[in-house]
């Protein structure tokens, strides 16, 4: 089942590349759309069929891959990954729709997009560290080309910056990963990459993996790898460039999924597998005890302040992403049930909301061919539906109660408050700033006098609405009834090494 979901996009890539001729652009788009619907159907089925009361992984598949290093093809999903798999599968067809107007080399674009989808779904399903890493890196290549070929004016710079930053992070992760593998056994006791097994070993007193000093160093290696992806200050500078230059659909994937790969990795590896390392950086004592919470705080406040200063619509949304990922971090640092539930929920919600925001920026950019916030004005009178959806997305993103963004952030902060009082209070400033920049943008773009240049601007069309509606419904539903998501990962959270 999971393999089917992972590899159907890959098969689809081959179909698009070899079975469709260059001139048949329309056909290529339709075929890709249908291909991306298949993982979505499977993901919806998994979401419904997933046994919420059972802890551990479900739908597991486990095969030997490379005997020499005991590398296995082991996939499976738990409550944590099933939500992110659903998010990935949902954004797939939405992004294909959002890419409908791409006119240059559409075949290659769609093929790379499908390869990217395989990498992302595979990453969230992988339960073997090696496989996990392969999928993690597999997303790099298509992303480089997607930004570099189809991006904006500074696309080459943005693409290589993204590539170099991520590779830098992942080589440090590779060292940590090899070290963990080597410590998991000896020449006589088989070593393993199996993540569930490694998690057990790291808890076993006296095992080499449970050694606190080792865990702290391994933690750092993995942490930098994921921090670049999240991105956590000071590794964030690739993100605004990549976002601004990337085409709309790729920005959606970048914000919606790729950033989540970082936080997912933090939960799956740093949190679950290296509890001693986590403890060192989050216990609130000693020189390093507040590190993670401080980084979360910096992300929230710094990201929000940067967003406030932007005049480019897309850059504003990009910096707001940095801010919102800070809530995930501070929730993780709390290491209690409320903090983690909030963090994981925030991952999903941010995926939905930021996807909406980038799609909305794309809509206006397609019409006006610029993104200067101060260059608009009074669009509300010309584009009422667009204005309505944008307002919904803004409100969700700034954390209005009743919409999904609020629940995740509130739970994260609630969890964090019991451990890091001062930092949590200071972090709430981020929410205020968030409200400020979103409302101010709303005012500058949609309210006031209509800018005469945009007399003839057209309302959002059916295809664009179709990309936004499913996401809009999710933000409202999850805002009113968050427990449909929380129920999914409640068991998964309870299995994590929580600290009360």
């Amino acid at each position, binding site marked *: 089942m999971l393999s089917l979901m992972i590899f159907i996009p890959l098969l689809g890539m081959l179909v698009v590349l070899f079975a469709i001729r260059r001139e048949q652009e329309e056909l290529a788009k339709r075929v890709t759309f249908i291909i991306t619907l298949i993982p979505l159907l499977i993901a919806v089925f998994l979401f419904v069929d997933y046994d919420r009361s059972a802890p551990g992984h479900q739908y597991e598949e486990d095969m030997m891959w490379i*005997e*020499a290093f005991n590398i296995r093809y082991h996939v499976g999903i738990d409550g944590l990954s099933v939500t992110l798999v659903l998010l990935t599968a949902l954004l797939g067809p939405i992004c294909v729709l959002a890419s409908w107007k791409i006119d240059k080399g559409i075949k290659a674009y769609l093929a790379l997009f499908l390869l990217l989808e395989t990498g992302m779904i595979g990453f969230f399903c992988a339960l073997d560290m090696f496989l996990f*890493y*392969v999928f993690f*890196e597999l997303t790099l290549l298509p992303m480089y080309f997607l930004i*570099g*070929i189809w991006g904006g004016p500074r696309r080459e710079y943005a693409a290589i910056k993204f590539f170099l930053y991520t590779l830098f992070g992942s*080589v440090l992760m*590779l*060292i940590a990963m090899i070290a963990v593998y080597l410590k998991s056994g000896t020449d006589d006791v088989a070593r393993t990459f199996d993540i569930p097994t490694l998690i057990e070993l790291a808890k076993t007193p006296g095992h080499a993996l449970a050694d606190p000093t080792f865990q702290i160093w391994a933690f750092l290696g993995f942490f930098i790898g994921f921090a670049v992806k999240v991105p956590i200050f000071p590794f964030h500078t690739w993100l605004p460039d990549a976002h601004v230059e990337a085409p709309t659909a790729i920005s959606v994937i970048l914000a919606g999924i790729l950033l989540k790969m970082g936080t997912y990795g933090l939960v799956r590896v740093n949190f679950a597998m290296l509890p001693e390392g986590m403890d060192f950086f989050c216990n609130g004592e000693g020189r390093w005890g507040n590190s993670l919470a401080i980084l979360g705080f910096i992300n929230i406040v710094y990201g929000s302040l940067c967003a406030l200063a932007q005049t480019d619509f897309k850059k504003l949304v990009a910096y707001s992403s940095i801010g919102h990922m800070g809530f995930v971090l501070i929730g993780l640092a709390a290491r209690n049930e409320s903090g983690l539930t909030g963090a994981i929920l925030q991952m999903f919600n941010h995926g939905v909301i930021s996807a909406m925001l980038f799609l909305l920026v794309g809509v206006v950019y397609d019409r006006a061919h610029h993104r200067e916030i101060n260059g608009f004005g009074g669009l509300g009178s010309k584009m009422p539906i667009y204005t309505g959806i944008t307002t919904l997305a803004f409100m969700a993103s700034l954390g209005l109660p009743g919409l999904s963004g609020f629940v995740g952030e509130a739970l994260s902060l609630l969890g964090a408050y019991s451990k890091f009082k001062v930092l949590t209070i200071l972090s709430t400033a981020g929410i205020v700033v968030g409200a400020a920049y979103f409302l101010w943008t709303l005012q500058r773009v949609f309210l006031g006098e209509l800018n005469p240049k945009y007399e003839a601007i057209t309302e959002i069309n059916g295809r664009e609405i179709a990309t936004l509606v499913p996401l809009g419904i999710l933000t409202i539903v999850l805002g009113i009834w968050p427990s449909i998501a929380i129920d999914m990962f409640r068991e998964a959270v309870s299995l994590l090494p929580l600290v009360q």
Partner: protein
Amino acid sequence: MTNIASIPYFIPEIVLVVFAVVIILYDLGSKKTGGNGAAYLGLIGLVIAVITALVIGSEDRSLFLGMVRLDSFAMFFKIIISVATAATILFSVRSSELDPETKGEYYALLLAVTLGMYLMASSTHLLMIYLSLETVSLTSYILAGFLTHSPRSSEAAFKYITFGAISSGTMLFGISLLFGMTGTGDIMLISSKLGEMFSQGNVYPLAVLLSITFILAGVGYKIASVPFHMWSPDVYEGAPIPITAFLSVASKAAGFALFLRLFYSGFKSADASIDWSMMLAVVSALTMTVGNLAALPQQNVKRLLAYSSISHGGFLLMGGVLLTSEGLQAILIYLIIYLFMNLGAFFVVILIANEVGSETIDGYRGLVSRAPLIAVSMAIFLFSLTGLPPLAGFAGKWILFAAVIKEQLYWLAVIGLLNSVVALYYYVRIVKAMFLESSDDTESLSFSPGSLVLLLIFVVPTLLLGIYWNPLYELSRASLGKLMG
């Protein structure tokens, strides 16, 4: 084994000699029509040599009174070298650089250099080691200078000779020192002698260190490790491209064969009191860093690949630092993978030089719209050279770093991996030119079906070996044979 009794086990080498002579005779006899007869004769010779080598098998045998050893380790390198030579012959046929009139001796020389490399992989006596090294060097000088109309090619040959003479002189001095101390040239005996001397304490460790360092100069020159690497960018740039490809793969493989045999079976017993594994680690770190940093500003793709091949030499050396069997296996596996990806990249350089007439990165602009298959293949080779999964280069990198980290040389692993980030930058410059930039020339390029098939021969393993590389591991384990004692 006596000289006469050894001959049946020496048939592959004899076949090479015979075919080298046959090619020269054929060349004399045939009218200078520019046909490829000599090339095909060379290929046939190589195939027969490999087949006879496989038939003879790789059971451990000491030949010619201990001068040469026939074992699975030597066999492994003979096959690698033969594949590289065969590829070079096929490349040369397709390269428009070479003057058809002189092709006869060119292929004869290629077989001669292959013979030298066979011997480098199997010599177990210092004298034989020196002779085989010189055979390879002398023939390589001529091959590097083969473009007689090009001053760059002559300059390449001249620099090659100058550096070669100095380093082989240094090596000879090291050999004489070692011979003076141990009284023998057989590296197995040297090993036991050194062990004995160290356990009795009647030896100056400094003298041993000095002689090993001098010998390393000769080996380091062949594998282009810092500080003996200076010749390689100029030689690589000036030589005909097929020869550049050949030197970067076969010459490096033979150099590593020699290095590993010398150090694993010869000098290992001196390990206890001399910390020369630290010296190797530093050389390895320097080699990859210097190679990578120097590659960054290059505009000429040949020169860029030359520097990248220096840095790959540093990578490979990492596996040899601690003389563990994991490290050795990693080197063998990396060499196989490197063979495919590097030769593939050079083949693309040849095709582009033929069709576009340029060796600079600018010549690769907009290649994806002019020759999509070539551009995609080149991207695969370059990303594999960077070591990105799921390509073969990643498998090689992974095994190598696992071996290094297992010995807790974390600093070396960090330097190595950061280097692969640097490497990404310059490899991507070519990818960027091919995919992200457009050229004024937009007419599509056409290539012969033969060239495309040959290209696929390199692309397919680069893809498949990244996904499933267990067989490589088994093969490399089998090839270690008794080398580790």
